[in-house]
Structures are given as C-alpha cells and as structure tokens.
C-alpha cells in the first residue's frame, strides 16, 4: 500500500460521499475567527508586565481573574494567572467563579451541564459550561466578542470530548459555529485523563519527566516538565517547560525595566521555535512558535 494507492482508492468512493464533500458547509455564511487558547503563562506575564500589546491584540480578564491576551487571527490566546474555573474536592465538583465555591455536582452529568455567563463592560461575553462526573469532569470556556468573533479554551475540553453534555451545551448556548465539537482527539499521543491525574498525578516518561495538560491542573499538581501544547502545523504534543522558560526569558527579568529591555530584545530577535515532543520527551512532532507579537509591525 502506498500514498498513491490510497489517493487512487479515494477516487472509487461512492458518489454520495463525493457529492456531500462538494456541498457548501452549513455554517460558512458568516465566517468567525477562531482563536486557540494555549497556556503560556510565563510569557504572557512578561508581555503584560512590559505593557506589551499589539494594536491588533485584545487583553481582558476572565471571570477567574486570568488575564487573556488574544493575538491576531491565526495566533493563540495567551493566558496568565492560575485561578481554576472549578475543582474536584471530596468527590464533589465545585465551581469557583464569582468568588465563591458552588457545589454543582448535581447539575453536571454525562448528559447534563452547568452553565455560567457574564457580559463585561466592553461587551465581551464569557460563557463557561461544566459537565460530566467528578471522575470525568470537563469544561469549556468561551469568549464571545462584540464584533462577532469568538475564542474558546481548548485544553479544558479535552477531558470529555464528544460527550453528550458537550453536544447539548453547544446546541443550547448557540455555539455551533465555533466548532467546539469538532475538536479532535489526541490520536496516538498519550494524554492522562482527569481521573488519572486526580488518582495518580502526572505520569512520568522514561526520561523521568512528568507530562500532562498543565493548565488548571497546575493548581493541584504543580507544573509538569512537559506540558500539552499544539505546534504551528496543528500537531499536538508536549513542550518542555524548561525550554519555554529559556526562550521566554524566565529568571532573567526581575524588574519592569528588565522586562522592557527583554521585550525589546525579543522583538528584535523575532519569533523562536521550540520543539513539540511526544510524551517520551524525545520524538519531535512539531514546533511551537514563541512570537514577540505584532507590535513591531505596527
């Protein structure tokens, strides 16, 4: 079997499938800009400290106090801050926004979800949907901007992709256009589930490195050595946190002045790339771009 034989075999598919593919997508009338959100807390903190924001970027705060910098279309939204949306404690799902701990366990389930919404002064609408069970809880966080574009927090969703509650929440909240349900699975990449993390903590590879999704789990488990990320070519894997720190200047900046100087250095240096690995911490599957942002172009 070869790539050519697969290409040729595709030509023998039934006509209904061929025809279906050529039909216009159902939700393509009004394109929405979809911005992926990846946790790059340290870099964002540096950018924020340096007051670094491109004219095309948006900065705002989430319900949990996270600061989000959404770069231009096609780039990633960076989040700083470590407040979790919810936590599992004593077998209960507790929602942490609004400054309180609300037990939402009974409102969640395999086909039930808890929804929270707030509209901020700038017109940005924040939606959070939490569903599942304490053993397999997941959530997604959606930011809807006044201009009609949207962004969603992808890592939170990986714990329960394809679940009935997700489909229901997407339908009920009118989020079909964002394509949340289209988020792919991890393929052959090893990613620990929420239940595994809660039970065993981060898994360890043969190099002795911990690996996992990071994000909200850092509150419970600390920072993994290898954190789940998506590379510039769409491949999912892990970036080594030490390499991210090195590239983003962690440990070198101790004052706002140093942050500005580092910021200028980064801007002149341009984007750098660090490897995206499989869980073994050795096999490179893609590259993660650390961009200085668009301010230099402005």
């Amino acid at each position: 079997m070869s790539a050519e034989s697969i290409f040729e075999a595709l030509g023998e598919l039934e006509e209904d499938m061929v025809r279906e593919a050529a039909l216009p997508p159902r939700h393509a009338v009004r394109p929405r800009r979809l911005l992926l959100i990846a946790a790059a807390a340290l870099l964002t903190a540096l950018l924020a400290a340096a007051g670094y924001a491109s004219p095309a970027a948006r900065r705002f705060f989430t319900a949990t106090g996270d600061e989000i910098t959404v770069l231009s279309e096609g780039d990633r939204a960076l989040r700083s801050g470590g407040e979790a949306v919810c936590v599992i404690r004593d077998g209960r799902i507790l929602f942490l926004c609004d400054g309180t701990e609300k037990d939402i366990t009974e409102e969640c389930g395999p086909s039930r979800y808890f929804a929270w919404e707030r509209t901020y002064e700038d017109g940005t609408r924040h939606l959070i949907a939490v569903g599942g069970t304490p053993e397999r809880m997941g959530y997604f966080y959606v930011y809807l901007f006044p201009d009609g574009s949207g962004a969603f927090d992808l890592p939170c969703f990986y714990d329960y992709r394809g679940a009935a509650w997700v489909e229901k929440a997407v339908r009920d909240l009118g989020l079909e256009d964002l394509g949340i349900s289209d988020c792919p699975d991890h393929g052959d990449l090893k990613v620990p589930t929420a239940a595994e993390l809660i039970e065993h903590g981060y898994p360890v590879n043969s190099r002795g490195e911990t690996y996992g999704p990071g994000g909200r789990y850092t509150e419970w488990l600390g920072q993994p050595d290898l954190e789940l990320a998506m590379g510039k070519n769409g491949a999912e894997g892990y970036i080594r946190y030490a390499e991210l720190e090195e590239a983003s200047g962690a440990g070198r900046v101790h004052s706002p002045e140093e942050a500005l100087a580092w910021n200028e250095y980064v801007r002149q240096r341009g984007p750098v790339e660090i490897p995206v690995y499989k869980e073994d911490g050795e096999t490179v599957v893609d590259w993660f771009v650390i961009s200085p942002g668009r301010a230099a172009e402005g």
Partner: protein
Amino acid sequence: MEDREIVELYWQRREEALGESRKKYGGLCFSVALSVLGSREDAEEAASDALLRAWNSIPPQKPEYLDAYLAKLSRRAAVDLLRRSLAGKRWSGEAALALEELEECVPSGASGPEERLEASELAALIARFLRAQPETVRKVFLRRYWYVESVSAIAEAFGWSESKVKSILFRTRKGLRRFLETEGYL
C-alpha cells in the same frame, strides 16, 4: 437539462448526451482534473477522456448523481494520465503536497506486494472509516484528498483558521492509519 434526462440520452445512445454533459459539467471535470495534473492542457485531455468513459459506461451504469459520477471519471482519467505518460509526468503542486500528506496514512510495513489491494477493496475500507467520522471531518478530508483543494481554500470555505483545518487533517490521517492497521495492514 436535468441530470436524469442527460442519463437517458446516454441510455438512448444519443450523442447529445456528451454535449449536454460538457455544457453542464465540463467545468467540474476540468477543475477536478486540473487539481490533480496541474496543467491546463493535460486537464482538458483528462476531462475529454472522462466524457468518453461516461459514454462507454452508461449504460449499464445509471448514476444517481451525474455530477459526482463525472467528477470521479475525470479524477480517474487524470491519475491514469499521470501513470501512462511517456514524458514521465509527476505529481506536482497541490496534488504532490496532498500525496505527501497521505504518506502518513500508510500503515507501517504495508509496502510489500503482498499487501497490494484492489482499489475497490481499499476504497471500501476507507469509505467505512470516513462514514464513521463526523460529517465536517469527512468533508474536510475529501476536499483535501479527493478534490485536492488547498488548506487555505478549505479554511475559507468553512470560515476557519488554517491551523484548525491542518489539525483536523492531521488527526484524520492518523485515524485512518490506525484503522487500516486494525484491519490487518501492518
């Protein structure tokens, strides 16, 4: 003219069938062939060949979707043109990129002659895999590897970022490979 009327012309062996097909679907046949061949001259040859194949296959065929049927014939003609060309035509442009991406779908070890499958057998397997995918994923995959559309064109059609399209394609290719391996092509 309605498709069923055109098909009826074929069945009646009336040559107007070819003219009506060319008028209605000549552009489609040409664009499908062009995406594979990259050359207008070759694409025109393949599109004409497709109509000839239609004439020779209808009857006994009675396609329900004439547009898709002709598109298939055109794609097949384009691939055959690549194969038999004495000038050693090679895959180029978007088709070459698509082919390179499809390398990821080939199960490990499935390169010997003993693993050779009839195209129809492999097509049936791939169809089974694709039908199990969400409609959107299926459409994106076929737009890339059947119609050989560029990633940017697909992204624009769906109103998505290119990274999302690439991500969907990447995972579907991996999924197809796993599926083929599960079916025994290791």
